[in-house]
């Protein structure tokens, strides 16, 4: 295992988290991580050392996900529906109240249109700057911020009002 691969292994938990936002179904999410890792290894010559590996891999995963949703659409398969509270059983989340809140925020995120969901996930969950997130999504920064502001408002409305 070389330095590139070590860094990639360290990123796996975060890649799985991002994949969970994209694919919702946890088995699908891990498949997506695997495709992403394999593509990253194949294309490692294209990664510029000194730049952020995580942003680069999020971009690969985003593209892998787009490929996957397109081929699913071609095959006529319906995407796994968002299941409310699917991730409620996280052992790390302590009280019932907190667990319900986590389930509710995850459900609110799952209901977002995909472009807003990606913006929210990269900035608020994965902690990328606006510029880094825009690069990972391959959109102008203005597009990123408008998706982010709309996505965030929708999550806030969902959490506050309960309706969506």
């Amino acid at each position, binding site marked *: *295992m*070389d330095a590139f*691969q070590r860094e*990639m*292994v360290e990123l*796996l*938990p*975060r890649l*799985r*988290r991002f994949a*969970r*936002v994209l694919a919702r179904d946890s088995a699908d999410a*891990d498949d997506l*991580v*695997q495709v992403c*890792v*394999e593509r990253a*290894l194949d294309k490692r*010559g*294209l990664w510029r050392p000194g730049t952020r590996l995580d942003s680069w891999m999020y971009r690969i995963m985003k593209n892998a996900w787009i490929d996957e949703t397109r081929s699913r659409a071609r095959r006529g398969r319906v995407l796994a529906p968002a299941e409310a509270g699917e*991730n409620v059983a*996280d*052992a*790390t*989340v302590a009280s019932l109240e907190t667990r319900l*809140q*986590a389930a509710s*925020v*995850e459900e609110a*995120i799952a209901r977002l249109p995909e472009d807003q969901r990606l913006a*929210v996930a990269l*900035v*608020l*969950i994965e*902690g990328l*700057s*606006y510029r880094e997130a825009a690069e990972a999504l391959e959109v102008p920064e203005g597009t990123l*911020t*408008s998706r*982010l*502001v709309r996505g*965030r*408002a929708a*999550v*806030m409305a969902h*959490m506050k009002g309960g309706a969506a």
Partner: protein
Amino acid sequence: MNFSDETVMAYADGELTGPERDAFEAALAEDAGLRARVEEHRAFAALIGGAHAGVLAEPVPERLVAAATREPEVVSLAERRASRPRFDWRAVAAMAACLVVGVTAGALWRGQGGALVRASDGGLSASGALDRALNRRLASEPGGVVKVGLSFRTAEGGYCRTFRVDKGEGLAGLACREDGRWRVRLATAVEPQAAQGGYRTAGTDTPPEVLSAVEAIIAGAPLDAAGEKAARDGGWR
């Protein structure tokens, strides 16, 4: 003063800078409503930030670790060559031919001195400035339309050289000496780079697909400066 949601959000996320941030903070000091909006944004950012946090604590499935740590394909060039099918010249020639068909009408293959590549005997040969550079220019020599990168020998004993053109639309590729001419084995469009001072390595100037083609057919290491000069002075025979 009225701030848009986008501005409040950017401030809450630490993305406002310079005078914009100063103006925002000045308003913030006097506006409890604005402070509340920022607080709300931050509270929700923290809440959203905790989504799917449980995943981080889960053990990573073994298959993912295995996928990330699979043996690098290049243990050595020799092993890599041995472990995969022989480089298929026909496929490469077909690829190059497609490129030529695509650009005959354009300027990609034309340097200042005319066409850089011509069809001959069912293949593609270097001509004009490209042919001259492949014959004469050493990798260490600057200037000219065509830069030469790596020179090396194949298992069959012939010489090959990589090249790069940054004038006009960029072009990079690989040519091999055969029957007294340079057959273009692979050519690909590249983003032209502005002329730069200082020394650049073949690795930074050569696109990955060209490097892969080199790796597939090279015997031993690329020629060093002395070897390159000797081969040139010997007419690449």
